[in-house]
Each structure stands twice: as structure tokens, then as C-alpha cells.
């Protein structure tokens, strides 16, 4: 893991002229985006603007139809082996956690390492406990997801992704399904991760988080990247009318 957070030079994600349609609906319209090593990007925009689709294209939960996406030097094509390789390198945290309810917390965390990385169980469990400690939830290892609060579940989900030792982490509105008092514990875990130099793409409307962590904020609307700026400039002086409108809505 690189600790140099200020050198986003070598791109780990490249998106060039990416288009995607759902039937007739043009969900991604000529997306161009480069993300450097250890760079942290916040994506915001109105509901339905294509934010989720954008980051889901990066680990091929959605398939793009035109353009090129290169992740960690591997181009995303229909080659299943490539896709599995990329998915192992890219962690994803979902709005609704998507923990596996039939497995204990510990088994949720070791599933990927054991079956995808072929890590021996003991080692996988040690790693799992390490990351559970990090998100302050190690005492819950033997419980099942249904027995945890939303905030705890989301921290488990973050730990589950980290157990795969990913190079990139994608977050799709990780706090928007949480009760307000649990938002902070999840954001804290993410901030800690950012401080360690993880490359992160985060779809969120948490402005405080964006200001303190992001290198860049991207605003999307109707499938396009409308505006892109360093966070303070983005929030204080939005250039586009649509950005201004959106910001005025989420600020009130």
C-alpha cells in the first residue's frame, strides 16, 4: 500500500469516451475520467444522473457499450478471467451493505480471500480480525449481519472489501441508508482509509467528507460529467448553473 497521498500521477483507472445505454436511456454519455494512484474522488449529482452506473462500470457490474475502460493496466472486455482479476483488485461498498446474511461476520470477511485469493483459512481469519479491529467491531466477529446495526454492518462491509487487499475502493452512497447518528462512524472509517493512501471513488452527498478527504469532486447530470474541481472551489464557486442548482438543493 502506498502512503504517498499527494502524487496522483500514474493512472489506475482510465475511462475514455465511455457510453452506456439502458435500452433507449443514455445513462453514461461520453465519460472521460482518469484516476491516479492514491487519488480520492467524490462523485455527486442528482438522483438518476448515472453515478452508480459510472462506478459499477469500473468493476463490470454494468457493461459499457462504447469507449474504453482500463483498470490497473487491464482493459475491461468480455474476457471473464480479466473481469475476475479486476474485481479482486477493486473493492466495492454498497448503499445497502449487501452482507451475506447466512454467514457470520468472520465468514463474510474470509469468503473472498479463501475462494478467490486461495488464502489459507487461518491466515484469512487473521487478516479479517485485523480489519475488524480497524473498523472497531472485532467483538462482533461471531455474530450474524442481522444482529448488527446499520452503521456496524456498513463498517463490516468496508472491512470485507479490505480483506481482499484491493488497490481501489468504490463506494456507492455508503451512508445514505443509515440513520443519522451512524453516519459518522462509517465516514470515520473511510477517512482513516483515505489517510492510508487508498485510491477511492466515492458517490456521496456528504460535503464535509468531500472537503476533508477528496482531491477532486465530480458533478454528474444526465449521464455527463458536468463539472470537476478541487473540493473547496467546487463548493464555494460552482461554475455551472446545474451545479449551482444542485448544491443549493442539497444545502437546504
Amino acid at each position: 500500500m502506498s502512503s504517498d497521498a499527494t502524487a496522483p500521477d500514474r493512472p489506475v483507472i482510465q475511462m475514455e469516451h465511455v457510453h452506456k445505454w439502458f435500452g433507449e436511456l443514455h445513462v453514461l454519455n461520453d465519460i472521460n475520467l482518469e484516476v491516479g494512484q492514491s487519488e480520492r474522488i467524490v462523485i455527486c449529482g442528482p438522483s438518476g444522473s448515472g453515478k452508480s452506473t459510472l462506478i459499477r462500470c469500473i468493476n463490470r457490474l454494468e457493461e459499457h457499450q462504447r469507449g474504453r475502460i482500463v483498470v490497473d493496466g487491464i482493459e475491461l472486455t468480455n474476457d471473464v478471467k480479466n473481469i475476475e482479476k479486476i474485481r479482486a483488485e477493486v473493492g466495492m461498498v454498497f448503499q445497502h451493505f449487501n452482507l451475506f446474511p447466512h454467514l457470520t461476520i468472520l465468514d463474510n470477511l474470509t469468503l473472498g480471500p479463501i475462494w478467490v485469493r486461495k488464502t489459507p483459512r487461518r491466515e484469512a481469519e487473521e487478516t479479517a480480525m485485523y480489519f475488524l479491529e480497524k473498523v472497531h467491531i472485532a467483538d462482533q466477529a461471531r455474530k450474524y449481519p442481522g444482529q448488527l446495526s446499520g452503521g456496524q454492518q456498513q463498517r463490516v462491509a468496508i472491512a470485507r472489501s479490505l480483506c481482499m487487499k484491493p488497490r481501489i475502493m468504490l463506494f456507492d452512497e455508503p451512508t445514505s441508508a443509515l440513520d443519522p447518528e451512524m453516519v459518522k462512524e462509517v465516514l470515520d472509517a473511510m477517512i482513516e482509509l483515505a489517510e492510508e493512501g487508498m485510491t477511492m471513488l466515492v458517490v456521496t452527498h456528504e460535503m464535509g467528507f468531500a472537503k476533508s478527504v477528496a482531491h477532486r469532486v465530480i458533478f454528474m447530470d444526465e449521464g455527463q460529467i458536468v463539472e470537476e474541481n478541487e473540493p473547496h472551489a467546487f463548493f464555494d464557486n460552482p461554475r455551472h448553473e446545474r451545479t449551482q442548482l444542485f448544491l443549493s438543493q442539497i444545502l437546504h
Partner: protein
Amino acid sequence: MTVSGNAPKAEVLRPPVTRVGVVGWMRENLFNGWLNSVLTLVVLYGLWQVVPPLVRWALVDSLWNSTPEACRSIDGACWSFVPANLRFIVFGFYPADQQWRPLVSMVLLVALLWWSRDRSHWNRRLGWVWAAGLVVMGVLMRGGILGLQGVETSLWSGLPLTLLLSVFGMVAAYPFGVVLALGRQSRLPAVKSLCVVYIEMIRGVPLISMLFMASVMFPLFLPEGVTINKILRALVAIILFTAAYIAEVVRGGLQAMPKGQYEAAEALGLNYVQTMRLVILPQALKIVIPPTVGILISAFKDTSLVVIIALYDLLNTTKSALSNPKWMGFSTEAYIFVAAIYFVCCYAMSNYSRRLERELTPGRAGSDP
């Protein structure tokens, strides 16, 4: 939870006397409201009419170990039919001097099922134990080696045949049904339509006609001189039939799975087989345990349809025993006996399914009733 210390002391209230104890329970459950009271009385009257004569017939006036002639002179049940014909009902045409072999096989089978009941025994070794057990059972039943006298499969009948058809029918139909359900969900159009056609075709045909086809039509397509064992053909028909129903039930379970579960598994890099095996199926199959067991139970009972192709399963051997002029006319007793055997098996299955369901519920630590 305990009441916090500084709360004002509440008076300890006990429920009113009329709500507890036997009287309370009866008031609550049998006589609350006039409709309930009337229903209770009607049911009590019905029981009064039915139970005493039944007890008299089955127990008081009955004979348990007598000649058929003695039975003809009484009003009660002639249970003597059962011990007198037990050997034939259970073992059918299997040579009498060799019947310890099916007996040992059945004991072995029950022991294996009993051992497999516990989920902590579900591992690779159990698979080997079953494989070994099957070989032993097969050798015992068929003989012809190790100094055992050979016994043609056409002589296999009675309870061993019923167990063979149902246990192996179910054990093979279940995985096959799961595969069919997965196939029906497949993105590959060829696989998908093949599974759909198969499932719909089978479900559109009664089991009896499948058994007929297996025993009458199927041999016509085989080259001259090649024969396939009749029991095997019936077994295959039962498997093909049951699997189609299981497939539909399992499909219901698969459809109940949230998309997020697939996505989380894929995002971790699990491939299709791993995703299904580790994440989706354990949850989906658990949801459909009750309907699945329903299907298995009816499959078990439907094995008695093999009577149509002249196989002598438990029900058919019983019928044959009844056709003996000496014992003719005691069919009530005979069928009650067979029904009891079927009931024990079905009840065990349904009981086990409930237990399994409870055990598979996450976070079961003591929170279950």
C-alpha cells in the same frame, strides 16, 4: 431487561385468577365467546361419538395373534393379519432364507440416514461412508459374489423396494432439480429453453404415464437384446418427474434473492459457480425447505404408483397378502398398518425439515421457541 433502580416502585401485578391455570386456559381458548363455546361443544360431541367405538374396535374387541378363523367370530379388529403376513408384506418375494440381507441393508440405510441427520457430520468423509454403504447394500441385496446367493432384482419387493425407490429417487432428484432451476435462470438461451421445455413437459404429464412410458415404450427404442432393469427404469422415471417439481420450487427461491447478494459476491471476484454455491444457493434453498419437503413427501408416497408396472412395493405386497383367501376381508387392518409405516416416514421427514430450517436460521443463539 431489568427495571432501572430509581424508577418509582411499581406494585407487582399478577394476572387475574380466571386467566391462569386450567380454568383460565379453557376460558381463554375453548369458551371465549358464544361461537367458540358452541364449536367446542359440537367437537366434544363428535369425539364422544367416534372415539369410544374406535377404541373398542381397535383395542378392546381386537385379536392380536390368532388364526384367521378366530378373527371371523369377533367384532373387533383382526390385527393378527399383520404378524401372520409381516414377512411377506415387508420382504415380498425375496427368498425367505435370505431375508436377513434386505433386513441388514435397511438397518444400514436407516443408520446412515440417522447419522447424516446432524449437520456437523456433513463433510467429505460422510460422502465416502455413503458410497461404501451403498456398495454394501447393493452387494447384500443382489448377491452373486462373496459366496452370497444371487437374487434377481425381479424378486426385490416390499419395504426394501419402497425405500430404494424413494430414497434414491429423492437423493438424485434434488440436485438434478437444482441444476434445472439454475439452467432455467441461465443467460444462455439454448440452456434456458431446454430447461423450460423439459420442466413444462414433465409437469404436464402424470407420473403414472411416465412410469408406463419407462416400462412399456422405452424398451421399444432399445436395440435388440439390450434390456434395462425394470426397477432402474421406474427409478429414472421417478427422478425425472420429481426433479421438474423441485426445479420450480427452487426457482422460486432463486427469484426471492435480492440482486445485491449477487452483486456483492461478484464484486468480491467470486465466479459463477462460487457465487451460486457459497452465497445464493445456501440462502435460496433454505427459503424453500418447506415446499421442497412437501414435494419429497409426495414423491415418497407416489412410489406406490409403481404397482401400475407390476413392481411389488410395500403397498402392493400388502394387497397381495390380502388376496390370500385365508386372510381376505381384513383390508382395513392391513391398510392401517401400511399407512402407519408411511406416516412414520413422512412425519420424520417433515419434522426433520423443521429442525433443519431452525438450525439454518442465522443468529439462532437461543432466540428460537
